[in-house]
Structures are given as C-alpha cells and as structure tokens.
C-alpha cells in the first residue's frame, strides 16, 4: 500500500466529518424537545428559562448557532455540556476508557471465539456439532442484547452468585494494583459476554460459510494432496475466509456501540453508552454532537484500517 493512497484515504475523512457535523447538528437541533426544560426543571419561571436560553446561546438563529459551533469544532472546542457544566471533551474522555474496555473485550472475545467455532463447525459440516453451533448462532443473532443482559444478570449473577450485576468495581472495596485489575475483570465478564453474543453469532456464521467454501477449492485440494498437516490446511483456508469477516467486523463498530448503550444501561457500566442515553433524555446537545462525531470518526477510521487489513490478509490486493 502506498503512503500516497493512505494519505488520500485520510484526507477523505475531513469532508466526511464536516458533513457529519452539519447533518448531526441540524438533526439534533431540529428534533422536538427543549434542553432548557431539562436544565431548569419544572418549576422555573419564564425569566429563568430565558436566562438559561441566552446563557447557552439557544436564543440565536439556528444557522448562527451552527456557524459558531463549526468554528469552535475547528479550533478543537466541542463546547460545554449543558448538564455537566464542564467542557464536553472532558466529559467524553472520562467515560471513554470504560467503553473502550467493554467494546474491545467484546470484539476480541467474539472474533476469536467466532473463528474457533466457525472453523470447528465447518470441519464437521452437517454433523451434530455443526448443527448445534448453527442453531446457537441463529439464536444468539436473534436475541436482543437488553433481554440477554437481564437473563445473564438473573442466572449467572444472582443465580450462581459468581458475578456482580452492576458497576465496574466493587462498591465496598477500594482496591489498587493487580487486585483492582482483577476486580474490573470480574465486573467486565458479564457485560462483555452479553455484548459479544450477537457479534459472536455473526462471526461464527461467516467463518463457517467462508471456511466451507475455501475447503472445497482447488488450492486446498492441492495442499492436502501435498500432504500438508490439517492445521496448516485450515490456516490456508482461514486466511481467505477471513476477508468477509474483517469487512463485517470493521463495519459493525457502530452497531457494537449501539449494543453498548443497552448493555451499559443494564449493567450500570459507566461508559459512553450511558452518557449517550442520558444526553438524549436531557437534550444535552453539545455532548450528543461530540458522541456522534466520535462514533462517526471511529467508523470511518475502522474502515481505513479494514482496507489495510485486506492487503495484509490477501497479498494480491494492492492500493495505488
């Protein structure tokens, strides 16, 4: 891949982000609802509502608000949260690590387990093990994550007592060092598992069908004829089968974030998903815009990274 291609792809990010800022701004500000009510409560008088409106510039015409906002974004200023009264960047950054941890864990777990299960199912195609994996994948794909989260909390947490049902750490202990890490991992297990379930199902189905297809090709027959060990044969088949999987994983970052909103709410995981939900409820527009911007950027950059992964997975692909 040439550096020129990479630069060109990254340059395309700029107009895409500008478009996102404008569309998101217009959509959010055109949606019904008034942040002033959420801020001032239900007992304010007209003068107080006017004061709040002026304070946050909400009394100005929408195009003027958009210009001011766009100018601020260009200077790296995403504004001040109506609800939190602090810079949006700080509000978002303090929640980012929790969501990154949750999404990365879920993505890694679903990708690695999906590959293992998909390969296992493909190697035992149409046998009971394959059937079981296919049915489980279908059920996993069709199950809404908020329901699965409730069931997991009831059975695996309350039922066995092995897992906590909420939070990122134990409320009664202020651990440090490795015990803190272990505490976080203990709290992470259930939400990550629930968030991973849907992705796991999809990855398993894709890997299974990809590997099945690859196993029937001539180069695999040749590899087997040369007497290659089965593990090496699978590795060859998997490399080709992974192309669509990488495409899907890259494209599903946004979906994973959607799942994180629900999972974070059920498990009281203090991340961006919870922040997004509460910001929608309170019409905290600067925070909402920042979150849309962040997620859009993540999706765009993941797509660039997916392109890079293609070239690594398939040496025939060249970008000029």
């Amino acid at each position, binding site marked *: 891949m040439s550096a020129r291609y990479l630069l060109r792809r990254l340059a395309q990010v700029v107009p895409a982000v500008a478009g996102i800022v404008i569309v998101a701004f217009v959509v959010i500000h055109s949606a*019904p*609802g*008034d*942040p002033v*009510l*959420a801020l*001032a*409560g*239900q*007992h*304010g*008088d*007209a003068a*107080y*509502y006017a004061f709040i409106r002026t304070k946050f510039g909400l009394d100005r015409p929408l195009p003027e608000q958009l210009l001011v906002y766009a100018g601020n974004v260009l200077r790296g200023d995403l504004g001040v*949260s109506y*609800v*939190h*009264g*602090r810079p949006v960047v700080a*509000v978002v950054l*303090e*929640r980012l690590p*929790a969501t990154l941890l949750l999404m990365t864990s879920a993505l890694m777990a679903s990708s690695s387990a999906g590959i293992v299960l998909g390969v296992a199912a493909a190697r035992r195609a149409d046998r009971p093990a394959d059937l079981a994996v296919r049915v489980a994948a279908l059920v996993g794909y069709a199950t809404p994550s908020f329901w699965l989260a*409730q069931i997991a*909390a*009831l059975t695996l*947490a*309350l039922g066995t*007592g092995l897992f*906590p*049902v*909420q*939070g*990122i750490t*134990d*409320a*009664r202990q202020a651990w440090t060092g490795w015990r803190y890490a272990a505490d976080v991992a203990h709290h992470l297990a259930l939400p990550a598992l629930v968030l991973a379930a849907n992705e796991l199902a999809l990855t398993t189905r894709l890997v299974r069908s990809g590997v099945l297809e690859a196993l029937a090709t001539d180069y695999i027959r040749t590899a087997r004829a040369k007497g290659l060990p089965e593990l090496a044969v699978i590795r060859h088949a998997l490399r080709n089968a992974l192309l669509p999987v990488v495409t899907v994983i890259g494209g599903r970052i946004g979906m994973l974030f959607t799942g994180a909103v629900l999972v974070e*709410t*059920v*498990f*009281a995981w*203090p*991340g961006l998903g*919870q*922040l997004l*939900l*509460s910001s929608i*409820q*309170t*019409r905290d527009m600067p925070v909402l815009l920042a979150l849309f911007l962040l997620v859009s950027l993540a999706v765009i950059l993941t797509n660039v990274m997916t392109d890079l992964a293609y070239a690594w997975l398939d040496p025939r692909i060249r970008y000029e």
Partner: protein
Amino acid sequence: MRRGQRSVVLVALLVSVTWAIPAWLDAQEGSARGGTLVVAISADPGHLNPAITTSGATHTAAELLYNGLLGRDERGDAVPDLAESWTIEQAGAVYRFRLRNDVTWHDGTRFTSADVKFTFEEVLLKFHARTKASMGGALAGIDAPDDRTVIFRFKQPYAPLLLQLDATEAPIVAKHIYQGSDPQTNAANAQPIGTGPFKFTSYRKGAEIRLARNPTYFKKGLPYLDELMMRVIPDPGTQVLALENGEVDFLWGVPGPDQNRLKSDARFRMAQTSYHPGGSNCIMTVSFNLERPILKDVRLRRAIGQALDREAFLRQVLFGEGRVATAPISSELTWAHAHGLNMPSFDRAEAERLLDAVGWKRERDTTRVARGVPGVPDGTRLAIDFLHFPAFSKYGELMRQQLGTVGIDVTPRPLEPAVFAPTVFKDRNFDTNVISYCNGPDPEIGVRRMYHSSQIGPAPFTNAAAYRNDRVDTLFDQASRTVERDKRSPIYRQIQETVVQELPYVWLVETPTTRAWSAKCGGFKAWTGLFAEAAFCKR
C-alpha cells in the same frame, strides 16, 4: 414574641427531640457505628451543588453534604437544623431565625448568617427554580444583623416559608467558596464543601460518589456511618438485583412487580414515603385542555371522570403502591387535604347518561358523534388525544380502554419529557394528558401553579388546563398571606370544592414511592434528603 409564636417554637423543638430519639435508639439497638452504606441512584448528577438546581439527580446525591436552615419531621413539619429557633413577626411578613453557633463548614471555616444571606441572594434566588419562582417575587430583603441572626422581610405576609428552608428547597452553601464566582461553574460544585453529616471524598463521573463521615458535624454523635457510597445504576431492575445480590444496601424506589418478592424476603426492609428530592406528595392527574371546544362542557369532563375506574389504575399500573386520590390536594398534606368532596366516582351508566345529555350520541360506530353539542359541528366524532411520558404508557392504555367502553376514542401520544412540556404548555397542542403533579410540602409550592390564572403560559408543569376562576385566584392569594394553618385550611377547602365542581382536572392516584434497604441497616429517615444522617449498618 407573642404567645402563639412562642408555642410554635416550643412545639418545633419538642418535635425535633422526639424525632431524634427513635433514630438514636435504633442505632443503640444495632450498636453499630462505622461501616459503609451503598446507595443506588438512578442518574449521574453531573455536579453536587443542590442550591443551583432542582434536578432530582443532584438533590438525591448531594443533600447529605448540606443542611437547610430548617429540616422536616416525619409529618412534614418544620424542625430546627442550622437555625435553632425562629419567630414570626408582623403577621408573617417578617421571619427572624437564630442560628446555631457550633456549625463549621467541612473545611473548618465557621458558619455564620453571612452564608445564609449570600446563599439566598446570590445562589438560590437566581438559580434554584422553585425557590426563585415561589419566594423571589414576595421577598423584600434579607438582613444579617449579627453572625447568628437572619431576618427575612416579605412585601406582605408569606405563609409557606418555614417549609421552604430544608436541604431540598434551600440548601445553604459557603460564602467563602462561592463569593466572586459564577455559582454554576465554580469548581466546588464537583468537590463540594458543606455543613452536612457527610463530607465529600471522591466523584467518578457516571459511576460513583463517595462520602465520608463528618467528624465535626454539629449534631453530636451523628452520623453513625463511616462512609456512604452512591452507585449510579440507571436501570430500576438492575438496582433490585444489586440489592438482592448484596452489592447495594439502599434503594430510593422499587418497581411495582418486584415489591412482593422483596416484601417476602426477610433480608430486606421497605417503607413507603411521599417525599422525593425531585418533588413530594405527587398525584397522577389528567388535565383537560379547556381551550378546546370539545372539552368546554363540564358534563363531558364529569362523564370522563365517572368512566375512569381509578382503582384499576392503582391495581394495574401501580401494583397497589399508592392511593386513589380523594381530593385535589394530597392526603399527605393533612391540614390542607379536604375530606368528603364530591369527586367523580366510577359509574359507567352515569357517564353514558351525561354524554347523551351533552349531545354526544351513540350511532352505528362505537365512537359517539356530536348531535347538537354547543360549539361543535354535528357529526364530529368524540375522539381525543392523551399525551403522556413514555414511562406512563400504562395510563394511556387504561384511559383508551376505559373511555372506549363509553364511546370515547382515545389516542395515547407518548412524548419524552423534553418534548411533552413545550407541546402541552407552550404550543397547547393536546386534548388531554397525564402529569405527575407534585404538591410539594405546601400547597403554595405545588398546588397553586395548577389552578391560578397567572400560571397559564409557557412555563412547564403549571396550569395545564388553562383554568380561570377569579374566585379561586383570590382564595389562593388569600391563603398565601395567611400564616396560621387553622385559618388556611378552610380556604384550601373552598378551593378544592370549587375545582371538584368545575373539573379542570381528574385526580387519579397518589403515588408514594417505596424505599427498600438491607435488613442489616436501619435508622433511615425516608421523608427527608438527609435520609442517612442517623443510618447505621451492622456488619
């Protein structure tokens, strides 16, 4: 001091002592000092300054850090807190408070009357929406003639003051922290300094707030707990599971379907209360838009009232947690709540008869049509919309079902709170709606806004019906100037009799909430924001 005023002070002192004894005995019985209490809260408060907001999230999380001039006892009456006594002068136009001299802020600075004057003038009357709206126009000035005296002067007698001075309505903040700054952006909002039973330790945004025992708290011996942790758990179902799993000790509310399970479990204790930092003594109320011709005839509104089985709302929506409303003012405000009113009782046949009498006739369709209804073209279907918060969707379903049986077609329109308020109060684009109107500790705070004609307008959660009655306006004005409760009660009775006759609203159910806590803990005062001031946990 007049004899009557002296007795008010004496009664207040007596009540505060009798209130303190059971909490003290509880603690002695448990012989529990120390330990950590974990409290589930539903939302991240954003900041911890309850003086600049009426947000329930902030008040729930922050009130234990502060005090008001006065507190409230279990019956809702005022008791001493930062002020140890008070007198009422000039028939209620002047209130004089004597402050305690043993109070210090969490940073060691001495608390004085200057803090009170500053808090009201620079913070509460500018940023606390309820205090600003109710007291702002009535107050003439606040004086602090010496360190221990605060005088509130009103333009005319002002009745509700004593119930507007607790940590929910008027938490006192430190002048030396906020002076010369914008109270809304002061860094202390995230690292607060108060006078309350607990001191701020840490705040992890969106996750938890840790408070520690204030060793220099002016109420000697209190608090019992070493540490109090507020854990943000947005989902009510998860809150209950966390309590059952031993991860939290105290819940502010329990969803109806979970209540029986917790009730039958010896590991937990429960109590009902009408107090909530976001609004107390709430009644789910159906508003009629009186500006719509279809709803102008009181017989139609009475027919709707009589077609509604309010017991069914209590059973099916609240799972029995509450009471059918028997008056426009909450039964928790015992002195203002009227008994024996002619509230519309559930009588479907009478509802049908009234509708026929107005001119709403049953024809081929199941929905009635207008035949000679004044102001309504003949042939108009009796179809109304019903706006509600998404959380109140069951009210919409029951309304549609129950009114459908008498030939009224109801279309529920769920709207988020931020959309609901401007639609109802600014655009007035609705026929009917349901609102949880909270009466507050005094009818002047939460009832007047529903009926007084000055309260029709864009400000949300005011007079949704756009009800106008000069006599009712006059009565409310008279009640606000009358300090003695025994003289205010008959005024509020007259108001309630009138509005029950004219029915701008139908009052469905009173909605107290259920607190739940681990049986290992006790000493909670569910009726105040300082709910854990005397709490303890046995470990």
